[in-house]
């Protein structure tokens, strides 16, 4: 279990998170939503051990994150950042292979087992087709899937994603979210079940794919529950300062939040 207990943290003297608590277990996909600047990225950075805490503690499977070294942490928690400034001369496969780092020695020699895991992760993320191509030639969607594959070969029980869908076209957003959903709820019982915490801008992606939703506002969790509980138009209208309505597709019952546009 990943336990965040009453953490306070920030940059220099500016406190960004004010007493955030959260629990996460393999087999669930938790969406982290909130307006810009509410502290979503800061929370993810704290959990991955990049930001020292001023108060509180974060535990992963019984160990305090701040007590683990980089490599121990990287075997527990994998992070999928936004695909930006990837080293363009690396091949797609080389990018994925980097994910094995916490298990490799200083020289970075891959074993046959490492190669198998890389193949498997690339198959799982539909990236095998362009394994040999330089990253600089790939589209944003293709790069983002590679970073997901890179996180998968880290073989961690916990996966953090920081707005991975932001710069993607609609079909890639949905494709990527389907892959991510599959990680928490694998159809194949042979695959390991992961806990996924994903920061998303798009409220409808949270509504559609999340098991639970965390609403973070000004560094505090103001609501935590099922998508239906958290994604209420009245609550979110207040938080985002835009009037929202919940629409239901009469054909399939699917719901979506729709801002009332003003001209």
């Amino acid at each position: 279990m990943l336990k965040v207990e009453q953490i306070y943290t920030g940059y220099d003297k500016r406190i960004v998170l004010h007493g955030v608590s959260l629990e996460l277990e393999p087999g669930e996909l938790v969406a982290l939503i909130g307006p810009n600047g509410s502290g979503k990225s800061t929370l993810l950075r704290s959990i991955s051990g990049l930001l020292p805490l001023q108060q509180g503690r974060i535990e992963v499977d019984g160990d305090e994150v701040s007590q683990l070294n980089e490599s121990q942490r990287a075997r527990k928690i994998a992070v999928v950042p936004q695909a930006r400034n990837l080293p363009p001369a690396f091949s797609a496969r080389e990018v994925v292979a980097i994910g094995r780092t916490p298990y490799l020695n200083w020289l970075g020699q891959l074993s046959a087992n490492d190669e198998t895991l890389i193949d498997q992760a690339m198959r799982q993320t539909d990236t095998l087709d362009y394994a040999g191509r330089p990253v600089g030639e790939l589209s944003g969607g293709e790069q983002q899937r590679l970073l997901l594959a890179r996180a998968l070969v880290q073989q961690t029980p916990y996966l953090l994603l920081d707005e991975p869908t932001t710069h993607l076209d609609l079909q890639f957003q949905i494709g990527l979210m389907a892959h991510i959903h599959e990680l928490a709820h694998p159809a194949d019982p042979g695959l390991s079940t992961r806990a996924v915490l994903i920061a998303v801008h798009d409220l409808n992606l949270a509504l559609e794919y999340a098991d639970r939703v965390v609403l973070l506002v000004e560094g505090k969790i103001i609501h935590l529950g099922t998508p239906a509980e958290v994604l209420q138009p009245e609550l979110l209208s207040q938080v985002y300062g835009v009037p929202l309505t919940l629409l239901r597709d009469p054909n399939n019952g699917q719901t979506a939040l729709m801002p009332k546009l003003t001209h």
Partner: protein
Amino acid sequence: MKKRLNPFLLCTLLLVASAILSIMVGSSKMSPRTLADVVISSIRGTTSSTDPNGVFSTILYSLRIPHMFLMLLVGAALSGSGAAYQGLFRNPLADPYLIGVASGAGLGAVIAMTIHWSYTTLGLIAIPLSAFLGAVLAVGVVSLIARVGHTIPTTNLILAGVVVSSFCTALSSLLMINASGDLRRSLVWLLGGSNQSGWAPVLAMLPYALIGMGFLLAMGHPLNVMQFGDEQASQLGIRVTRVRWLTIIAATLTTAAAVAFAGIIGFVGLIVPHIIRLVWGGDYRKLIPLSLLGGASLLLLTDAAARSAFAPQEIPVGIITALLGAPFFLWILRRSKSQNYW
């Protein structure tokens, strides 16, 4: 090309060929036949018919071969450290010369020389150490000036390098003008030409070069991971601060050793890693060893050119590398802007 030829084999063959060429070229020409003759007879312990007085043999073993090894080590050092700086700063234009490290090392070496330790055993230890301190100081100042947040933009890096380099060069010149006796020798040495011959500089450089290069070779994988940025590298299990320091120290030690024994030779660390990256990709586990081999070859070839182009006058090899390197620099600059190559 990428698949068929083993890059290590190719670069090693190039190095061997360059080394043989380097031995043959010089004020007294040595044909392949003479060379083979002298080598074979010295192995057999007999006197060669083509070299009855042993003149060629002396030239070969006391001048040409040690000079060849010195150039080989220096070229490998500059190119390997160039590749490492590029990985460290995540910038294709980082070169020991352009980022001011070489000038810092030069200043350190000049300071040690003006204390008149130059040609004693002590000098052979003190000069590289002093060069190392100068280089560390230079790289520290450059990265402090150039840093913006977590990154070092190209323009900042090069500008900071120019500033630090100019400052160090000015101080070196000042010291050399005051130290009248060694003035000319130091000046020629700084332009990139060894002012010492024989085995002494080779043996003196060897430990520094081997330690530095050994660490650089071990940095291949960590540098690969660092190409994704410090934060991601840390999240992938790399101890970023430790890798950063080890790389800086190893690359700077290697550069300082080269500068202490061969002066300031620019652009080798820029040209070679760049060509290797274009042909065989950006994996630092390959890039660093191939840069060592390729840098050694390039410096042997340019040095051979420097010694034969205006024969019997020998010109400092740094002039040739700069003539090649400056246009190359402009080409990379255009390329990295237009293609977002990095």
